[in-house]
C-alpha cells in the first residue's frame, strides 16, 4: 500500500514534469527547420511516451497471491530438441524435469533423428516423441504433441531451462479460475556471469520479468514471452493450437487474450536457462525478436484488436513498437553531424532551458526505475544501474533498425533458436557499426577543428563556439557508449571455456540457486 502511494506520487510528479516539458518543447520559436524539428520531436516524444506508458504500467503493479496446487491435475512438460542442439544440455534439463515434485509426465519433442536423444529421454523417465518434418519449428512440434497427449495442463519449457522442483506447485493453483488460459513465470539465467554480453543481455530482462510483467498482470494482460509458460489445454485448443511464427509465444498470448482468456504472472525464479553469451548470438536473437514483434504488430494485432481490452491493446502496442528505438537512435546520431557538416539544425533551443525542463522528467524516470527494483524477481542479485544492458541496447540500434527495415520490406528471417553455446565471432564483423561511428566522429571533429581554425573568420569564431562545441559534445556521448560495445565484440573473439551447464547440479536446484 505504502509502495503504491510512493509510485503514485512519483508518477504524478513525472507526468507534471512531462507536461511542463511538452509546453516548453513545442514553442514556435524553437522550430529552426520544420521538417527536421518534426523528426526530432518524433524521436524525443516516442521515447517519452514509452517512459510514460511504463509509468502507467508501474501504477498497476500487482503480485498475485500464491494458491496451493490442488492434487490430481494431469500435467505435462513439453520440451523440444532440434538438430545441432547439444545433448549434454538435455541431460541436465530432463534430469531436472524428473525432479519436479508435482506428478507429471515429461515429453521430449524430438526431430534430431539421433538415437542418443531417445536414449537420454528414456533414461530420465521422459516420453520420447519423434516429430519430424513439421512446419514452424517449436510450435509445430507442440501442436503435434498436443494431438498425441491428453494432459489438461502443459508447461512449455525451453530445453536450456532447468526447472526447479517446486515449479509446478507454484503455478498450478492459479488454474482454479476457469477462465485462466495461461500462467507465465519469470525467466532467469545461470550463465550471465560468463561474459559482458551475457550480463548486459540479462540486465535488459530484469525489469521486464519483474515490475513490467507485474504491471501488465495488474492491467490484465501479462504476456507470454519465451519459455516457462504453462497453458490450459482447452485454451490452446480454442485458438487452434500454439501460434506459429518468429514470435510464437507473443502470437499465442495475443490470440488467447483475444479469445477472452485471462492470464496471470508468477514473479518467481522457478528455472534458470541460457542467455546469449557472445555479442553475435545476442544480435541474432534481437533481430529475430525485432522481426517477430513487428510481425505481431502488423499481422496479428489487427485481427484480434477488437477482442482485447483497451489496456491489453495498449500493452501490445507498446511491445509492438519497442524496436522503433532503432530508428529514433539513428535520428539522434545523425542530427549533430548534420549540423556540423551543413549548419542545418532542427531546433533552436537554449540548452540550459532544455536541461531545466528535461531533468525533472529524467529524475522521475530514474526514481521510479530504482524504486520499482523492489519488485525484481531476485532483487539481491538483480538490483543496480543495469548500465551494461543500456550499452547493449544502444549498441543494438543497427540491429533494431535492420529489424524495422526487414519488417517494412516484409523480408523473411529464418527461425533460429536462441544460441545455446557461445560462438566465436570476428571482431570486425560485430564491431563495424561502432567503428564506423567512431571514424565518422573523428573525421567530423578534425573537420570542425580545421574549419574553426583556418576557415571561420575571427569575427564569427567566438560568438559561434557555444553552438558548435555543444553539438560536438552531443555527438560525443554515443561514441563513449560505443566503447562498451567494442569491449563486448572483443570479448566475443574468445569463448568461455567449458559448457555453461557443466556447473549445474540437478540435485541442488530450487529456492535460491
Amino acid at each position, binding site marked *: 500500500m505504502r509502495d503504491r502511494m510512493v509510485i503514485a506520487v512519483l508518477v504524478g510528479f513525472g507526468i507534471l514534469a512531462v507536461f511542463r516539458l511538452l509546453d516548453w518543447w513545442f514553442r514556435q520559436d524553437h522550430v529552426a527547420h520544420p521538417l527536421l524539428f518534426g523528426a526530432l520531436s518524433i524521436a524525443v516524444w516516442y521515447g517519452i511516451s514509452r517512459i510514460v506508458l511504463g509509468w502507467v504500467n508501474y501504477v498497476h503493479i500487482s503480485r498475485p497471491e500464491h494458491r496451493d496446487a490442488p492434487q490430481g491435475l494431469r500435467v505435462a512438460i513439453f520440451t523440444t530438441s532440434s538438430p545441432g542442439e547439444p545433448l549434454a544440455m538435455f541431460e541436465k534439463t530432463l534430469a531436472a524435469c524428473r525432479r519436479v515434485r508435482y506428478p507429471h509426465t515429461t515429453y521430449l519433442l524430438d526431430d534430431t533423428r539421433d538415437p542418443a536423444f531417445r536414449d537420454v529421454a528414456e533414461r530420465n523417465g521422459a516420453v520420447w516423441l519423434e516429430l519430424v518434418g513439421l512446419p514452424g519449428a517449436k510450435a509445430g512440434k507442440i501442436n503435434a504433441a498436443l494431438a498425441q497427449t491428453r494432459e489438461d495442463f502443459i508447461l512449455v519449457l525451453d530445453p536450456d531451462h532447468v526447472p526447479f522442483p517446486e515449479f509446478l506447485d507454484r503455478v498450478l493453483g492459479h488454474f482454479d479460475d476457469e477462465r485462466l488460459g495461461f500462467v507465465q513465470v519469470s525467466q532467469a539465467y545461470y550463465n550471465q556471469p560468463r561474459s559482458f554480453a551475457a550480463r548486459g543481455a540479462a540486465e535488459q530482462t530484469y525489469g521486464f520479468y519483474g515490475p513490467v510483467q507485474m504491471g501488465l498482470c495488474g492491467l490484465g494482460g501479462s504476456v507470454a514471452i519465451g519459455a516457462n509458460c504453462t497453458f490450459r489445454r482447452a485454451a490452446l485448443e480454442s485458438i487452434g493450437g500454439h501460434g506459429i511464427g518468429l514470435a510464437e509465444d507473443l502470437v499465442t498470448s495475443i490470440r488467447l487474450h483475444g479469445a477472452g482468456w485471462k492470464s496471470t504472472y508468477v514473479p518467481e525464479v522457478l528455472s534458470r536457462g541460457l542467455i546469449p553469451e557472445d555479442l553475435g548470438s545476442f544480435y541474432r536473437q534481437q533481430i529475430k525478436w525485432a522481426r517477430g514483434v513487428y510481425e505481431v504488430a502488423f499481422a496479428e494485432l489487427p485481427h484480434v484488436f477488437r477482442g482485447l481490452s483497451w489496456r491489453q491493446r495498449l500493452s501490445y502496442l507498446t511491445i509492438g513498437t519497442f524496436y522503433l528505438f532503432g530508428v529514433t537512435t539513428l535520428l539522434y546520431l545523425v542530427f549533430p553531424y548534420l549540423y556540423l557538416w551543413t549548419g542545418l539544425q532542427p531546433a533552436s533551443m537554449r540548452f540550459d532551458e532544455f536541461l531545466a525542463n528535461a531533468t525533472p522528467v529524467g529524475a522521475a524516470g530514474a526514481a521510479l526505475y530504482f524504486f520499482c527494483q523492489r519488485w525484481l524477481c531476485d532483487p539481491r542479485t538483480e538490483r543496480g544501474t543495469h548500465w551494461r544492458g543500456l550499452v547493449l541496447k544502444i549498441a543494438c540500434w543497427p540491429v533494431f533498425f535492420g529489424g524495422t527495415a526487414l519488417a517494412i520490406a516484409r523480408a523473411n528471417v529464418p527461425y533460429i533458436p536462441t544460441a545455446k553455446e557461445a560462438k566465436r565471432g570476428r571482431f570486425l564483423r560485430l564491431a563495424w557499426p561502432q567503428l564506423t561511428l567512431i571514424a565518422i566522429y573523428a573525421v567530423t571533429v578534425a573537420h570542425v577543428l580545421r574549419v574553426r581554425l583556418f576557415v571561420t573568420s*575571427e569575427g564569427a569564431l567566438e560568438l559561434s563556439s557555444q553552438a558548435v562545441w555543444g553539438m560536438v559534445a552531443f555527438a560525443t556521448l554515443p561514441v563513449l557508449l560505443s566503447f562498451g560495445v567494442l569491449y563486448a565484440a572483443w570479448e566475443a573473439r574468445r569463448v568461455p571455456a567449458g559448457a555453461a551447464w557443466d556447473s549445474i547440479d540437478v540435485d541442488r536446484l530450487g529456492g535460491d540457486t
Partner: protein
Amino acid sequence: MRRRHRALISVALLLGCVGGFALLTSLSVGTEGPLAAGLARVGTGVGGIEHRLRERFVGPGRAAELRWFDRYRRDAALLRAPDSVLLGAYDSDLPQSLEGVASLERTLGVSLPIVQAYTAWGDRADEQFPLALASAIWDFGSIPLLTWEPWLTDFDNGRHPELPLREARERHGLASIARGDYDFYVDEWARQAAQFGKPIFVRFGHEMNDPYRYPWGPQNNTKEEFIAAWRHVVDRFRALHATNVVWVWSPHVAYQYWDLYYPGDTYVDWVATGVLNFGPIAQWSKWWTFTEIFGSKYQRLASFKKPVMIAEFGSLAVGGDRANWYEDALAALPAKYPAVRSVVFFHSASDQTLTYQKVDWRLVTDTAAARAVAAAINPWAPGPRLKQ
C-alpha cells in the same frame, strides 16, 4: 548508538543541503539560475580558449592590428578624456557575428576600436549582462559600447510579484527605477559588469527626451525622474565597484530642452547624440546635412566639457548625394568640432525604425559612399591603415 547516528546523519544531510543550495545560489546570476549562468560561463570560457588557440596556430588576429588602441583599453582615465577621435560601429550581424564590423573596417581601411551593441532590460536570458558578447568584442581587440534600454515590460510578474502589472509599469517607470524597484536587475548587471572587469561604455536610456519613440521618454516621465533614475543607476554601479563602466549620456538633440535632461558632471563621462539622415523616406524628415542635424547643436553639446560621441552616424541614399553627405560630415571633423572624440557608424542592413519599411544604412554595399568616407577620415583617423 543508532539513534545518535541517525541524528548525526540528519544534521549532516541538512547542512549538506544548505551548503549545496548556497553553492547553487552563488553560481546563479540574479534572475538567471545557476544552470544557465554556469553554462554561460562554460560557453564563454570555451569561446576564449578557441580564440587563443586560433592565435596560437593561425597567428595574431585583429587585436594585433589594434595594438595602438591598447593604451586606451588599459587606462580608464584616458578613455574618459581621449586624445584622438575613436571610430566605431554597430553592425546588424551582431550579436551573432563580428564579421560585419570587420568587413566595414576593410572597406574603410581603418580599424574601428569601438563596437556597439543594443541590449534590453528584462528577465530573458538575452537580457542579462551580455558576457559572451562583451568577451568576444574584447578578444577581437575592441571595447564594447552597450546601449542599455530600460524596457520595463519584459519582467515577469510571476517572478517579481512586487512590481506593478506590466501595463502600469511604464508610466513614471523611471521614478520606479530611481526608487530602487529594479535594483534586483540593476545590481546583478553591475556585478557582472564589474566581474567582466575591462572598460565598457554604457549608453543608458538613450533618446530619453524623444516623446514618440521609447517608453522611457517624456510621454511617461518627467526630466527630473530621468535624472534621478540615471543617478540611482550610476550610484548602484559605483557601490558595486563597477568603475570600469564609462557612462554615455545620449539625448536626441532634434527635440527642444534636451539639455535639461543632463544628470550632472559627476554622473556623466561622455555626451552623445545620434546623427542619422533619413532623407525624404521618413514623413517627418527631409534631406538634412550634417551641419543641420549636428552642427547647430554642437556648441551646447561641447559646453558640458565632456568628450562628445556621435553614437549613431549615417545617411540613407534616397534624396541626395550620399557620398557627398559623408564627405561633408567627416572631412575636417576634428578641426570643426574639436570636442567630438568618437564617431560610431550605424551599419544596419535592415533597420526597422520606420515601421512601414526596412532601411539599409550599410556602407559596404555602396562603393562611392565608402570611398568618400575612407578619403575623408584618412587624414585624422588614428591607428595604422588596413589593406582594402
